[in-house]
């Protein structure tokens, strides 16, 4: 039974904000759950502001709005500043410490993961950072079966990148918070 879980991902265009949402949503559908993902973005494809609001439930979802996020992937200072007010002590905020500094006034649970550095070091390309964060989220959340997420990665990402993305996902799952 999954009443309703809300996940917010936001950052710059090009960081894979929408991709994480797509993979989560696809995995949820693979697992027989309902899901919604709202996308908000600026005009630019890269560098602009992007946000995915993902809701997963075992029943049809009425409001697709994330207002009590269980997870917030904060990939830019602007995104963090815009949405940290939605987070409470039940929220886990995954952030890149090189870009986002945790606000000491926030009572959310901040987890700093240098995803880009890890991706660069292990996979030779910082672009895989988003899937590392997805792996961390998946290991912590436990709602979605990892096999469904791997299948979703294969369904949603270009074939040439499957191997590295699945490796990135595993790196994230193995990451100790």
């Amino acid at each position, binding site marked *: 039974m999954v009443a309703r879980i809300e996940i917010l991902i936001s950052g710059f265009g090009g960081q894979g904000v929408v991709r994480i949402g797509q993979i989560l949503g696809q995995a949820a*559908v693979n697992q027989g759950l309902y899901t919604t993902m709202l996308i908000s*973005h600026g005009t630019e494809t890269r560098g602009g502001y992007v946000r995915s609001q993902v809701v997963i439930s075992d029943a049809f979802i009425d409001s*697709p709005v994330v207002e009590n996020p269980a997870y917030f992937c904060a990939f830019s200072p602007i995104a963090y500043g815009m949405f940290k007010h939605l987070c409470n002590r039940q929220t886990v905020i995954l952030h890149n410490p090189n870009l986002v500094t945790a606000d000491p006034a926030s009572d959310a649970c901040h987890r700093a993961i240098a995803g880009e550095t890890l991706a660069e070091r292990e996979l030779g390309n910082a672009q895989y950072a988003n899937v590392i964060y997805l792996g961390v989220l998946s290991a912590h959340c436990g709602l979605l079966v990892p096999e469904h997420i791997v299948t979703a990665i294969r369904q949603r990402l270009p074939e040439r990148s499957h191997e590295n993305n699945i490796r990135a996902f595993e790196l994230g799952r193995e990451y100790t918070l």
Partner: protein
Amino acid sequence: MKRIFDTGNAAITEGAIRAGCNLFAGYPITPATEIAENMSRRLPQVGGYYLQAEDENAALHICNGGSIGGLKAMTATSGPGFILFADAFGWAVSSEVPVVIVNSQRVGPVSGITGAPGQGEFYLSRYLTHGGNYETIVLAPASVQEAYRLTVRAFALAERFRTPVIVLADQMVTDGWETLELPETDDEFAALGLEVVPRRINPGPEFYPASDEIDVPPVVLGHNTGAACSDWTPTDRGHDTEDITWQHKHAWRLIHKIVNNRQLIDEADEWFLDDDPEIILVGYGTPSRVIRSAVGEARKSGLKVGGIRLISLWPFQSHLFTRTACYLVVELNWDGQLVREVERAAADGSNVHFWGRCGELPSMAELLDTVRQLLDNEPLQRDGWRTEKW
């Protein structure tokens, strides 16, 4: 059913293909570009035609031309392109051309903000061309699944009523990703309450009867109808005239074929209206989903709150507002559009309030706060923007 995860743009595309669409002409614009992209890929697979036009006015004229040539046509755009339909839309209305128009509303006026939702074309969709003397059919999906259903329905209504039908979506529906169940068999399709109305051909020689009849096959040029399709007032044989009597008959048909058969168009959801709720929340499109959550939550805490979601917007369903009540109309705009129509339709003694914002959906918490303020007779004030009267 095939259960997939996809966007409203994909759902609209699949709905159109299932409904027999075989012509798409359009001009790309966020957040409806993917409809054009998807149609350019899907139409050749089903023997249809895809054409990128030089602009939106041309796109709709191409659709009109294709429809008069016997094709089932669709175009899709957002606000800045929608306004350019003004001329071609008039042709479609007056020449009684079945065509489907999708508008994914974003923030306006003009280019506004691309990747954020708005609801600024409620009235524009009613009066998309000049001159009056017509009624418009407008359907408003609130989810990816409903975008599929209403696209199929729009094609059926367009054929039966010989008129353009507008699917008025918003950026959250078209750009949003959601669980989508696509029927794989005819039985599953029919179980969704859907039908495909194939293109029939008016045998002529009469143009259209001066009556409110629907299901009169549309004129398809080259099929011995003897009827011309032009922007002038038609006689009963489709010849141009400037005679005011014929003009009256023509206008009467354009108006009454729709209003007298509106039971085939009207659609709405009503939530918790049976116990005289103290407040009724009203909306359409994606905000109506937050309304539904807020109404459910309010009920859990013992508040007598109800909700109305409009699925068909035009002709306006005034009959839904015959209760004397306190209405709170929630819209994705700052100026208040639907609220004006609710104010007009609401029974005497009703109070009609407005909650508006553009570019961002309301949260359930915000709507519940507003409900409590109204129940406590507090004036509505928020950041200097929300006003009691628009």
